């Protein structure tokens, strides 16, 4: 028996970014064994080079629609868009890592391996067009992140956070897998192409197994995106994990999860939009409520940003609700904007305070403008952007999402889109309170004598300056990214 290998469409170029990142991870793993401990900066350098390679390898995918490996992955603009966001996020993370890790005696080579592995998983998730590869991507990124959450091995909080994440993540993965099994049972297909065929048939809307499967699938993905009510792990894990891991996790995981959400709901099941609209809209509304309301009463900045992340998951999900490429484009723009501003905000949190002491408490931030004006200024930019105040990119992110809902309400001539829109607008106003509070606190005179005057460091300074500049420049010229997002959102199966 001769197996026709070519029939399944082996095309390594479609997964070249993933391969490059994985290869770099293996390379770093080996290198770590053989280089002396005081030269681990080389690992960071290798990791950055590998990620840059992945970035370059993603660009040829733009504008194509190349399915490969039996329709399980695709190289298209959508994947390229996310690859660029993910690679850039990882590069920035790695840039600011060595200093952070050394200050806390966590400077192990495995850190970079795990970051790279998680990135590879996220990229795979963005390119996945089969339930199998979606699961593979999610597991790859999750396993790496479980370990990263507990990377500060000697700290109880870090261990606790890792264990919680593992247990609850396993729980959610169960839902995800169960949903996939139900979908497979109902349709007999695992590739998204096959699913789309079935979902397009007129009887699909009455197929209870399929709908239940979609429901459970959305539970599993909402968990990864930390959308309420599947968000419970988020504050604890974000708080306990080393801040640099939180920085990476809060941005990259959410982006990757929404890549899967976007592809599954907008590309595969648009015909069933009238069925999945209510559950997803409820998740979005619930996230907006929980995230924004609870963030108000947080005094720990990491927890506050965790809830703000939950709220933003709600905003991002709004763009998916219409089930159209137009709405998805606004979601993609939001993800890009969120990546820039949230990364920046967490990066500031990592660099406030000296030598690893607990600094996320808001009282410590009093008078930061006078002590460390650079950090305070960039933090102000990020807070304004997260709140959605022009001319920052956060304003346009919200504007585009809201606009897509209005357009959807007009074209579908249905009132169902107004309710989430109104909630989102009201909650935007609520969010001003806790974002601007940070700015106010930084302007207040500090209580007592605080003499902390750590230099920011060249790499951190560069990263913060880049993020802050991007937040403002993309706010002044949102058109470029939005054009890209619109192209990327035109996903075809």
């Amino acid at each position, binding site marked *: 028996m001769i197996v026709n290998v070519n029939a399944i469409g082996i095309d390594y170029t479609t997964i070249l970014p993933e391969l490059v990142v994985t290869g770099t991870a293996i390379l770093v793993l080996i290198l770590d064994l053989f280089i002396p401990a005081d030269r681990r900066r080389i690992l960071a350098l290798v990791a950055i080079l590998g990620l840059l390679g992945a970035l370059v390898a993603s660009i040829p995918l733009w504008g194509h629609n190349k399915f490969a490996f039996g329709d399980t992955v695709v190289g298209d603009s959508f994947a390229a868009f996310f690859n660029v966001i993910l690679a850039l996020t990882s590069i920035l993370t790695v840039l600011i890592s060595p200093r952070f890790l050394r200050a806390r005696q966590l400077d192990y080579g495995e850190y970079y391996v795990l970051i790279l592995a998680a990135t590879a998983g996220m990229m795979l998730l963005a390119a996945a067009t089969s339930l199998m590869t979606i699961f593979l991507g999610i597991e790859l990124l999750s396993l790496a992140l479980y370990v990263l959450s507990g990377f500060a091995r000697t700290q109880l909080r870090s261990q606790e956070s890792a264990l919680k994440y593992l247990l*609850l993540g396993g729980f959610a993965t169960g839902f995800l897998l169960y949903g996939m099994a139900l979908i497979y049972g109902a349709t007999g297909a695992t590739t998204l192409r096959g699913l789309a065929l079935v979902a397009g048939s007129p009887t699909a809307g009455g197929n209870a197994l399929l709908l239940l499967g*979609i429901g459970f699938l959305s539970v599993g993905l909402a968990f990864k995106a930390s959308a309420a009510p*599947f968000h419970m792990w988020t504050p604890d894990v974000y708080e306990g994990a080393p801040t640099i891991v939180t920085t990476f996790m809060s941005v990259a995981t959410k982006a990757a999860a929404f890549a899967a959400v976007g592809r599954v709901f907008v590309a595969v099941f648009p015909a069933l939009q009238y069925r999945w609209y209510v559950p997803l809209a409820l998740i979005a509304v619930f996230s907006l409520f929980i995230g924004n309301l609870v963030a108000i009463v947080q005094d720990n900045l990491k927890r506050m940003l965790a809830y703000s992340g939950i709220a933003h998951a709600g905003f991002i999900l709004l763009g998916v609700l219409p089930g159209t490429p137009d709405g998805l484009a606004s979601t993609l723009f939001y993800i890009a904007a969120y990546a820039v501003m949230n990364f920046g905000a967490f990066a500031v949190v990592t660099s406030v305070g000296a030598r690893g002491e607990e600094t996320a408490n808001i009282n410590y931030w009093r008078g930061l403008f006078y002590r460390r004006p650079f950090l305070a200024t960039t933090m102000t930019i990020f807070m304004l952007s997260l709140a959605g105040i022009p001319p920052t990119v956060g304003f346009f992110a919200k504007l585009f999402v809201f606009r897509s809902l209005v357009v959807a309400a007009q074209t579908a001539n249905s009132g169902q889109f107004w309710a989430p829109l109104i909630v989102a607008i009201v909650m935007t106003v609520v969010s001003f309170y806790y974002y601007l509070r940070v700015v106010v606190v930084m302007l207040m005179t500090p209580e007592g004598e605080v003499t902390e005057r750590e230099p920011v460091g060249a790499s951190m300074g560069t990263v913060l300056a880049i993020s802050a500049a991007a937040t403002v420049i993309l706010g002044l010229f949102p058109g470029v990214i939005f054009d890209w997002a619109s192209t990327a959102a035109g996903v075809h199966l």
Partner: protein
Amino acid sequence: MSVLALLVLLLPLAGFLINALFGRALARQLVGWVGAGSVGLAFGSALAVLVQVAGGQQLDHTYFTWWNSAGFEIPFNLYIDPLSTLMALVITGVGFMIHVYSIGYMAGEDRGGFSRFFAYMNLFVFSMLLLVLSGNFVWLIVGWAGVGLSSYLLIGFWYERTSAVLAARKAFVMNVIGDVGMMFAAFVIFLNLKALDYGTVLQPDRIHQLPKGGTVITAICLLLLVGAVAKSAQLPLHTWLPDAMEGPTPVSALIHAATMVTAGVYLVARMHALYDWAPAAAATVAIIGAVTALFAATIGTAQVDIKRILAYSTMSQIGYMFLAVGIGAYTAGMFHFMTHAFFKALLFMAAGNVIHAFHEDQDIRHMGNVRSGLPITFWTFLIGTLSISGFPLMAGFVSKDEIIRAALTSTGGFVLLGVLALVTAGLTAFYMFRLFLTAFGWEWLGHDERHLHEAPSVQTVPIMILAAGAVFGGAIPVGSFLKPVFGESPAIGSAPFFGVAGLSILVAVIGFAVAYQLYARRPEMAAVVRRRLGPVHAMVEHKYYVDELYDLVFVRPGFAIGRLLRDFIEPRVIDGLVDGTAELFRVEAAEFRSLQTGRVRNYALVTLVGAGFIAGYLFFFVRPA
């Protein structure tokens, strides 16, 4: 040409960025030359643009799309035609002179102030160029707000002075009224014409789909006029301009005489296709212009502060320009804009030299002996005075005469406006010679022993160059240059030409003669006249009590409402509502937070319940179709 046009715009921006970011670290000389040089290079680029525009080229080039979403597209495009080229040339050319002059004038500032000044000035030039070169309403408004901002910053440049800060605030508030008008105009335009770029909006075919003189087109033009009136200090939004003289004198020369305040004239001229279709709005422009011209000229006769007199004269001259563009004589209006930029910038800069020489005293009654101390300043100021007063064949005479002639030969009630303009011309000659004779002139007969020093050549050379413009600027063929924009101006026979010219010379001579009689020959008569006029004089001296009126009608009630809100509404109603809402959210938040127990089993339970709800909804509420 698209590159050149962009260069005109970006050079001052580069100058601004360099001086704003690194100005404190740079040597003074470098700061000055970056500030002036960037504008000078922009002038050079504008000249290169001129060569191509004079050859008949036009340009509406889109550099990038700033925003494109669901059919709402805003490009960043520059619109280069003879009109915007003329504006850009005057802005950069006169601007360059004033920047060079500032290097000398601002030499007394410390290093931080010096670089701040040039950064602001370059920011202004950039905003102003954006305003005139922009090819759509969005960037027009951006530039419009930008010049307002830089004007605010420069009026309040000496921020330790309370009066400067108050003046800056007043200018800002007045200008924001205009900005709001502009914004609403843009909204109405977009609603009715579905576009915001000039290439589409100003198409006659498109405009003519609206009924001529209808509500929509009239509303658009009047809303635009609100912006124009505020920016150009016309009645009734004029009160900020005299106060704006608190800024350094080069600022007054550049912003509050030569360029920014004429933006309103540019706006009407640029939108002439709209105004031609809204006769009522155009007539409003003309009436506001003529009345302001006369109104400001009368006030100018009774002031004693040299810069304020010049400020009122600016208002008055811009009134002429408004009159011109209001009656459709766009070419004449733009011509007068150009010559006015020459002689008014010259007058301000010369006045600046005098003020420096008299140790920042601006009262004309304290001045004297200028000719022996500051000969260059003296003669150039005289040239400026002759030009603005309409001395035959000076630039000011040629352009002003065109406006008066256009008004007198036009149909309908505009003839009356022409008569007003003629009276204003006489008043102009009177107050300008009053200023000149009092401050510069006559005391050289009675020996004045004060030793005054002429300003350095970095200050006098630009003035002399502008003086050449004030004399010979009338020979520049602006009319034929602007023909592609406004079309042929109506032909006028030579008989009325000489008749009107003779009339305007006559009133100018009368004005001069009265001033000479009262302030040179028999100064004691001036006091008698003042006494005779009594309340009229007091009214003019107090600028018709407009400031007091606004204070009574707007400011005081505003404060009263503010106090009411502060003392009653705010603490009781608003705070109650806000606090109540906040409290509600806090309670809710605390309830949600209590779910966050930190126990994994509780978290898993919440997840399970959530998944259960979703499954339940999909399973039970969605029955098979």
